[in-house]
């Protein structure tokens, strides 16, 4: 498997180094290291319970890491104070909004907290999200609550926006609204977005960089471009009675052998020529083959399955 870390050249807004978070006997995050470059949208993908929320909570100093360090906007997360929080936006499915307030009252509450609050942007977002201003938030649907949270997390133009499962439980229309809104804003604002999700299809449209975490361990962290470039699904047809041995595919991600055809996922794809040469040398009975790019969703599934098939390494003593 590819080493999980790719060297990032831009100034990182988030730097996590060898961070672990343990709750009693459960190690929610294990030796996590990643960097998020400034101005990028970083998708942090993982299944339920993979450690995404714990990582984000650690970034906001809501949880302290058991070991290792995390820095956000150049500050150690354990020293995060109001000054840094004024530059960070946070939207989470778990966050408790002051639900007895109306959206207008929520805006009035948040405005004095931020020197950079932009009333014009707030008005634009309010119009875009079509939120009723004079109804208490507690009567809102889930989608409207997320939109309200997003509204008061964007109106002060944060340098960094942390989003924890923002699409969870939303209908496709609201998801699309949110993604479109974020894409539009990303073009206008110079911000960094760190978004955790298991809704990979939505995130794929947004992400410049992708990190994948499974069972607390980071399995991958690199740019979407390089990820899409190096993963390919390969379909090969062999001569009859010459089906290859499964042992030949033990080093690839997910292989399926069906009669004389084989499908596998290539994680080191560089070019058709290089792949052809490797197939020719390793699988001489192959009659024909094709390779197709993989969507992020399939890459995620392949990597997660491969990670789970690998026996876990014992934690250092």
């Amino acid at each position, binding site marked *: 498997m590819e080493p999980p870390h790719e060297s990032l050249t831009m100034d990182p807004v988030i730097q996590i180094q060898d961070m672990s978070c343990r709750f009693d006997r459960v190690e929610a995050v294990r030796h996590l290291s990643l960097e998020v470059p400034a101005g990028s949208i970083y998708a942090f993908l993982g299944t339920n319970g993979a450690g995404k929320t714990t990582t984000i*909570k650690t970034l906001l100093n809501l949880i302290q890491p058991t070991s290792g360090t995390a820095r956000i906007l150049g500050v150690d997360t354990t020293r995060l104070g109001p*000054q840094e929080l004024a530059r960070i936006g946070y939207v989470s499915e778990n966050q408790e909004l002051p639900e*007895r307030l109306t959206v207008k009252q929520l805006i*009035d509450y*948040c405005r*004095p*907290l*931020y020197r950079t609050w932009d009333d014009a942007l707030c008005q634009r977002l309010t119009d875009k999200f079509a939120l009723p201003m004079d109804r208490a938030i507690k009567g809102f649907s889930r989608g409207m609550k997320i939109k309200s949270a997003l509204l008061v997390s964007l109106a002060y133009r944060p340098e960094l926006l942390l989003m924890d499962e923002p699409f969870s439980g939303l209908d496709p229309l609201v998801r699309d609204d949110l993604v479109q809104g974020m894409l539009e804003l990303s073009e206008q604002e110079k911000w960094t977005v760190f978004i955790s999700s298991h809704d990979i299809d939505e995130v794929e449209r947004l992400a410049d960089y992708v990190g994948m975490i499974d069972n607390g361990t980071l399995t991958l962290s690199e740019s979407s471009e390089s990820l899409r470039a190096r993963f390919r699904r390969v379909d090969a047809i062999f001569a009859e009675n010459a089906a290859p041995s499964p042992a030949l595919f033990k080093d690839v991600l997910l292989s399926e052998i069906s009669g004389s055809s084989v499908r596998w996922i290539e994680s080191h794809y560089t070019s058709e020529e290089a792949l052809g040469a490797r197939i020719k040398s390793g699988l001489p009975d192959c009659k024909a083959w094709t390779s197709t790019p993989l969507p992020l969703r399939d890459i995620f599934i392949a990597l997660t399955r491969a990670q789970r098939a690998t026996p876990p390494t014992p934690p250092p003593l």
Partner: protein
Amino acid sequence: MNIVLAQLKKDIQCQRGPLILWIICLGLGLVPFVILAVFSHMEHSHVQFANLTDMQKIAGALSYVAIFMLCMMAAAFGMFLLVPVLVIRIVHEDTLMGTTAFWLTRPVPREKLLLAKVLLIAVLLLPLLLGWGRDAEAGTDHFWPSEIAWIAAVAALAAITPGVQGLLGYGLSFFFGKIIFSGIIERVWAHYHGTDSIFPDGLLQFFTSTRHMFHLTTTDFIHLCYLAGFAAVFIHQYLTLRTRKSLVIFVTTLVTVALLQMITAAPPDPSSAPVIQFNSSHSSNWQTP
């Protein structure tokens, strides 16, 4: 200051319903006094009641007593039940436990949040303090520390619990825990030492002279100790968010005051609030100031 005001405004908006009820109760509490003032004014203005029959006078007096009773009950409800409920709601609105509270991820300095909460709670307590101030002028009241200590206990418990369920659980545990703790110490002492005082006379004299210095009754002194302890828990929790340490301060307050009660051995004082009044030791060497 903007942040404190924004926080205050938000808390008032969030508690608008109970606050309106509280104001109504306050208003009702004032009604008998307004009626008395009106009658007094009418007497001064030489308005004659002579043309009323005896029955009308009796009916008027009964009506006044009924109104007085109802208004006082409403005021008592507002002051003694609604205020603690409001305090709990105000503190729990921006919970200090867990990781999901909205304010935790916003640039709200903890000391400003604390100031906003204290200001709002102080406003709720203001009518009580004014009432007691007036009684104290008349030299009839020793009551205020117990009620404030009771509110402080509620506020401290709210600060170290995430919700009402936890608050009730902790509150009951502490209440009965303290009674059991005091009881066990007294029983064990009585078993080995009979009726001898647990603490040396010097210690008793020290505490007696301390409370004399501040012109306090023993009960008020005990309640002030509670107040100081619970205030410490409340402030510590707001400024540090270290719930375990705050819990330790809370328990230390209870244990310390339980020991103080044994030292001063205050007998039950009927003028004290019922919740604070769980003195369990009695001794003949109790002294009044």
